[in-house]
């Protein structure tokens, strides 16, 4: 499905794009122009959301990994990431289809739960107790000592699950209610 308004070249799909064009954006930064659901648009908010979105995601990942030693963790990280999506939604509404990857909330929830559960069972394979965690410390040149604790996997599961829950919330209460309202206006309901 291609959107006619996206005119920027897509590198991977179109052969013959000069290598100099590799950094050309694959989509527009802003869905400027006509609003599709006929409401007024807060362009500034949309722009801010676009700019802030990746930063917030990075912050959320930082929180996820920092959690073991400082404030943060999978729960907080997941909520922050979820709120990045909420911001996008609040700015763009349900017509905001600018995300490249479509994340299906039930899949994310299931994935998170699966990862968390499997992490619990993983130690059994190595002859340890259920849910036991292992600590690995590796020395890397330049970066110094890096600590890896296997319980981070559990945290990643929590993180994904929380994002899924928030996206589910957006899907049902957000766009779901909005679609209902639109349907009511058209006189269907």
């Amino acid at each position, binding site marked *: 499905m291609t959107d006619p308004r996206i005119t920027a070249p897509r590198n991977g799909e179109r052969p013959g794009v000069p290598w100099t064009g590799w950094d050309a954006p694959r989509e527009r930064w802003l869905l400027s122009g006509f609003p599709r659901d006929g409401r007024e648009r807060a362009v500034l908010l949309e722009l801010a959301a676009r700019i802030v979105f990746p930063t917030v995601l990075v912050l959320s990942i930082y929180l996820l990994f920092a*959690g*073991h*030693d*400082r*404030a*943060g*963790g*999978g*729960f*907080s990280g997941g*909520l*922050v990431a*979820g*709120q990045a999506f*909420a911001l996008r939604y*609040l700015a763009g509404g349900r017509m905001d289809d600018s995300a490249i990857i479509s994340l299906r*909330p*039930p899949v994310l*929830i*299931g994935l*998170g*739960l699966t990862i*968390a*559960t499997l992490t*619990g069972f993983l130690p059994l394979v190595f002859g340890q107790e*259920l*849910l036991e*965690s292992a*600590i690995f410390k590796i020395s890397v040149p330049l970066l110094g000592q890096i*600590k890896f*604790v296997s*319980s*981070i996997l*559990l*945290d990643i*599961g*929590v993180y994904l*699950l*929380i994002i*899924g*829950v*928030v996206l*589910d*919330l957006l*899907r*049902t*209460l*957000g766009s*779901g*209610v*909005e*679609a*209902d*309202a639109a*349907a009511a206006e058209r006189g*269907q*309901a």
Partner: protein
Amino acid sequence: MSAFVLVHLLVALALPIVARRNTGMAFAIAALPPAAALTWVLARSGAVLSGDAIVEEVPWSPLLGLEFTFRLDALAVLMTLLVSGIGVLVLVYSIGYFHAGSGDARRSAPLLLTFAGTMFGLILADDLLTVYVFWELTTVCSFLLVGQAGISRESRRSALQALMITTMGGLVMLLGFVVLGEAAGTYRISEIVAEPPGGTPLAVAASLILVGALTKSAQVPFHNWLPTAMVAPTPISAYLHAASMVKAGVFLVARLGPVFVGVPEWWLPTVVFGLITMVFGGWRALHETDLKKLLAYGTVSQLGFLMVLVGQGTYAAALAGAAMLLAHGMFKATLFLVVGIVDHQTGTRDVRELSGLGRRMPALATIAALAVASMAGLPPMLGFLGKEAAFGAFLEEGGGTGLLIDFVLLLGSVFTVAYSARMLWGAFARKPGVAPTGGKQPGAVLLVPAAIPAFAGVVLGIGYPLTDELAGSYAAVYGAGVDPLHLELWHGFELPLLFSVVAVAAGLWVHAMRVPLTALRRRLPKPLDAQRGYERIMALLERTAVGVTGRTQVGSLPTYLAIILLTVVAVPGSVLVYHAHVPADMALHHNLLQIPLAILVIIAAIAVVRAKRRLTAVLLVGVIGYGIGGLFIVDGGPDVALAQFLVETLTMVAFVFVLRRLPARFTKGDAARSLRWPKLALSVAGGVVIALGAVLFSAARQQPPAVSADFIAQSEEGAGATNIVNAILVDFRAFDTVGEISVLAVAATGVASLVLASRFDRRRRSSRGAQATAPAERPGVVLSGNGNGRRQEEEEQS
């Protein structure tokens, strides 16, 4: 032993993949685990029968004292012959019986194997709780097997009935297990048998456990689920009836019998209900025209007989019981498989339609005749051994009671002979005025599994010393005494022989009189019908449920909130006020920053109550939340504060989403105005109780709590974390975390489906409204699921 049980279940898990490609192969593979188990048990049977039980313990939850304990003793060997032996035969037979690739076949192979595995676990279990686990697993398996795809209403109803009755019994039985286990101080059956507790607990446990055993083994008045469960495919019926499910109750009575020797609450019900069941089942079987139903009532009757024998608690009765258990498994398996073949080859199993099949399928008729002879108790079959011993056991006991029991058993045996004859006559005889039945000859894959238990019945009858040893080593738990009864073909001219002769002669006469007898039965009044009773009870239950739900679930949010608040104020609140001790060292504040934050929260709280617009109210609630987050920061809990802020933000977003569909201002009806003061009082009371609770509970905390100290000490090296909160979440209490996120996943999915479902509903309704003008509407939408009870009620009222 646990490995064998596990292999059953694991292979069953993998079977659906095979069954999708080739159902015959699936059944063939499914036959392997029971065959292996049977071989293993038989190889050890010599030592076991001479008294050396093999014990295996698998710790399950050692801290709670839970373990899977398996013990191979004489009774287990006996039951393995049935469970695994007949299991293999049924599975092999299924290759020929089920149509290749049919849905029934795909479902049945893994389910039957699971069933065989759980039954195998049940008979080996030496721990009361392990018994319960396997017991209920068999219930679930039978539900799935009887229900099959659940397409026909009859199979759904039968499966549900079997589930309801046996689970109800199972729960009562669990209660009995707990009473017994607590009274004895151990849940290990072998230890309880060695040192049974005494007194009232034993009597209570006996009655409770018997409820489970009687329901599972379909004793009157719980027998009705068994004949209705006949809707299952025949191999499944064969397995359920001959070897497993219904034998579980008899097995349990046999297993726990030594504990309850001489307890009247144990032997009296088993004997009374057993005798009633035996006579009643036999009487009903006399009038059935469906061969499978006939066999089903025959099973009910035989189970009653077995119950009488194993519940008695004497060496002789146990000996007879063990022999009959074996005999019944053998002949009933054969007969069910034979009926399955008849049904499969001719397309009918109605007595009135079958004719002349004996001449067309002589091999099948011979096999059936052998089994029927064993069922009727003709020498030299295994059934004869068992029945002689049974008569002998009660004669040996002597007295009026023994004689009375013997006479009822004789009556039951007369019926047994009569329906045995009816079975043989119904399936194979040439009936005048009925066209000879057609149909193809059955193949070896169907015939051989049916033939093996039939011949086993002969072999075990003629080889009676072997049978005697097998049954005797089980009966030995009761103490053999000086001159113990033996299973023999020839005792001499004694009373049991006379009884047998009378039973056969009278039974044949009853069979000859079948037409007038059936007419007589039609004329008899039917004061009690268990099936009708069950249906009445279920309808009553559903009506009560509807009534209760209609009165409690009124659908008003304020009402629900009021009920919740009232409960909080009344139950914990009253206790709190009663025991309240205001802590001595209460300070107004610990940190100056708390004061402005507290004032902010209080102002916002007052403003919420005064707010006229919903959005304002939500924003003010948000202010309260952030204020509390601020308090967390002041108290040095950045983690908690972060979570609080994030959750608060998300909650507000969710609120705003929902608010779009609600009016902007709060609206008040007249009713709301009149309820204003009660509402106010209730909410103030609720607030005070919760605030009071918060103060008192936090004052009750010790400084510093022992658990926290442990966590602090462990977090760095144990979990590799310097953030203790996170260490607790993902390491120390990771199990809780996994549980909580599972709850979250379920809740999110539930909410999402509710919201989306209502939308879907609305859309469908609107589209149907658009179609309403179309001339031809569909005849009616059949609502699947719970229409049963309602429809039943209507039927009853009409």
